[in-house]
């Protein structure tokens, strides 16, 4: 009998070793997994789109001679002082508290050197970022930590945060170990306690209230500041339409690849839609209302390169925002700290326990010794370099498509590699004229 071939050990595709490990972890601890970052699962993304480039029917622009503009105006609908950025890549909202003061300063320096904006987060405005950011967007969040009219007036734009891609429908969480004296003071909370940021705004609910809230913020700031409304990738057609109806100057749309400082892994991985599926719906809403380009659209969630920027713009966005990529440019998850990542039970490239405040790269921490590892001047230069590379890459693609401005990129420049991406992005499957789902609503 022993000479018969045996069935080799076979792992389940449902109960994989990773799934089983998580079940064992849950059984041992009784608590769900909390982590930072965005979704880690494989999703239809910009990688599934390609540009066609020029040919006999389209002619290209000369890469080193003919100009391809990259600037963008934001907030032209109602604001007396709209924002003019040199490049269409902005820095997304990230809080002081989640990030160190040095990291916030580096983001401001890098964004300013590259001619773009940076954004506060759920912890108020710090001098580091205001002082080092030529253009600073001030987030108006449910928690209202540190909210005050003086900071509203010294901001360059106001972003009303309804949701974010990592957790549409969820609030924030900053665990006690990151609540230093300064963070506690800015948030009017005792030091060292777990701090919950509400998931809903305390003084408005629904689109009709939002319209009045926007009126109030415009009155307080004398109609000078552009007002953005940020939503997670949930129901982008309706959320965009309602934000426009409420009076937004700019809609910020964050897909599920967008990061967070901390939330439940189950939330990050199972709630919300990938940015690829969100952009066409938002653009359709703007077009249906006759507001495409009147109300600008900023998209975020998994933007990594100039190719991603170009694809987002070709689908109809006016600009993009980066968060995770900016942190990586500063030095997050750098293999040079591998020994320390190992000591924390992780490895470079996979480290996501940003909520614990022990970041070897000194970025997602309030520990003074760790935070001192990040030189804000050097970090700012690295970010600025990266932003410039993204811009050059996007220009390279735009010129190849014969566009003298990044904003002239259009869906007709794109094809999809997969049926899923073709359906989500609303562009034909490569080699066909087939756009799955085009007969449907969106």
């Amino acid at each position, binding site marked *: 009998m022993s000479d018969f071939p045996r069935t080799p050990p076979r792992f389940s595709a449902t109960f994989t070793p990773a799934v089983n490990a998580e079940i064992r972890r849950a059984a041992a601890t009784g608590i769900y997994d909390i982590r930072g970052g965005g979704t880690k699962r494989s999703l239809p993304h910009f990688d599934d789109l390609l540009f066609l480039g020029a040919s006999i029917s389209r002619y290209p622009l000369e890469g080193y001679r003919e100009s391809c503009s990259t600037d963008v105006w934001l907030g032209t609908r109602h604001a007396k002082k709209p924002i003019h950025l040199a490049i269409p890549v902005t820095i997304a909202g990230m809080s002081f508290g989640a990030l160190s003061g040095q990291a916030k300063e580096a983001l401001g320096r890098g964004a300013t050197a590259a001619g773009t904006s940076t954004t506060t987060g759920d912890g108020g405005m710090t001098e580091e970022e205001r002082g080092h950011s030529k253009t600073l967007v001030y987030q108006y969040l449910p928690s*209202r930590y540190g909210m005050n009219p003086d900071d509203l007036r010294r901001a360059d734009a106001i972003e009303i945060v309804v949701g974010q891609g990592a957790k549409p429908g969820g609030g924030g969480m900053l*665990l006690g170990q990151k609540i230093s004296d300064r963070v506690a003071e800015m948030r009017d*909370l*005792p030091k060292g306690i777990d701090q919950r940021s*509400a998931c809903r705004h305390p*003084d408005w609910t629904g689109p009709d209230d939002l319209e009045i*809230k926007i009126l109030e913020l415009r009155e307080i700031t004398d109609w000078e500041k552009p007002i953005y409304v940020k939503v997670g990738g949930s129901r982008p057609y309706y959320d965009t339409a309602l934000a426009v109806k409420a009076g937004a100057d700019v809609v910020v749309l964050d897909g599920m690849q967008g990061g967070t400082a901390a939330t439940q892994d189950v939330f990050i991985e199972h709630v919300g839609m990938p940015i690829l599926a969100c952009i066409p719906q938002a653009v359709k809403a703007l077009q249906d209302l006759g507001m495409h380009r009147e109300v600008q659209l900023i998209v975020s969630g998994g933007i990594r390169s100039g190719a991603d920027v170009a694809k987002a713009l070709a689908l109809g966005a006016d600009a993009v925002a980066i968060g995770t990529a900016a942190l990586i440019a500063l030095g997050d998850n750098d293999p040079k700290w591998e020994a320390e990542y190992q000591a924390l039970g992780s490895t470079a490239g996979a480290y996501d326990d940003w909520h614990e405040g022990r970041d070897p790269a000194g970025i997602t921490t309030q520990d003074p010794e760790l935070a001192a590892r990040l030189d804000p001047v050097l970090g700012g230069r690295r970010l600025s370099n990266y932003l410039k590379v993204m811009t050059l890459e996007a220009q390279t693609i735009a010129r190849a498509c014969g566009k003298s401005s990044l904003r002239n990129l259009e869906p007709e420049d794109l094809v999809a590699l997969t049926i899923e991406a073709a359906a989500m992005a609303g562009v034909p499957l490569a080699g066909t004229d087939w756009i799955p789902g085009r007969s449907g609503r969106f």
Partner: protein
Amino acid sequence: METFDLVAAPLRSLNAALHSLKGQETNRTEWEVLNPRGAHAVATGVDAPVEIRVRGSTGYYCGGMNKQATIRIEGSAGPGVAENMMSGAVIIEGDASQYAGATGRGGLLVVKGSAASRCGISMKGIDIVVHGNIGHMSAFMAQSGRLVVLGDAGEALGDSLYEALIFVRGSVKSLGADCVEKEMRPEHFEMLEDLLRRGEADGKARPEEFRRYGSARRLYTFSIDNASSY
């Protein structure tokens, strides 16, 4: 007295005139707003030591983010009155709708009638004195400051609150998660005496008639054993 009639002039010109006082030495310290007719965002973002009388009822966010000014509403106030107030005072002769004093960081809010649900939600240092009753979920996630209620409180008072102090003279329908009754100590009687006087309620109630509520601080650090409390 500077008089502004909102039937004759737009809201924008009222707020622009009030904002122009910021940082100025001015003798234009008395203002009157006629015919508010439920307008939203009346006298928001003021930053000057002036007296503003609103002759009627207001819509949403009257006195929002106020600094220094004393705003007296001779009627009732819509949702979010005095939201995120920094300093100064907002006094309402009538009732206040939901979210009165939301996220307020300083100053004094007085409601001579009753306040609806979520009064003092997420308050961060403001003092609120309500002569009548307050609705459900009041002082939800309240961080600091003091809420004084001469009448009754609705359901789930002080749910998930942090360090705010709540004083209620009448009944409390129910307490929210982590909110408990606490002992009245001598400093609390003194505090109440001052708040009742400044809240124009000193003839209506005495400090010893109140009970104090605050955080049990059991939910300050997340623990799985508390999951059923949320």
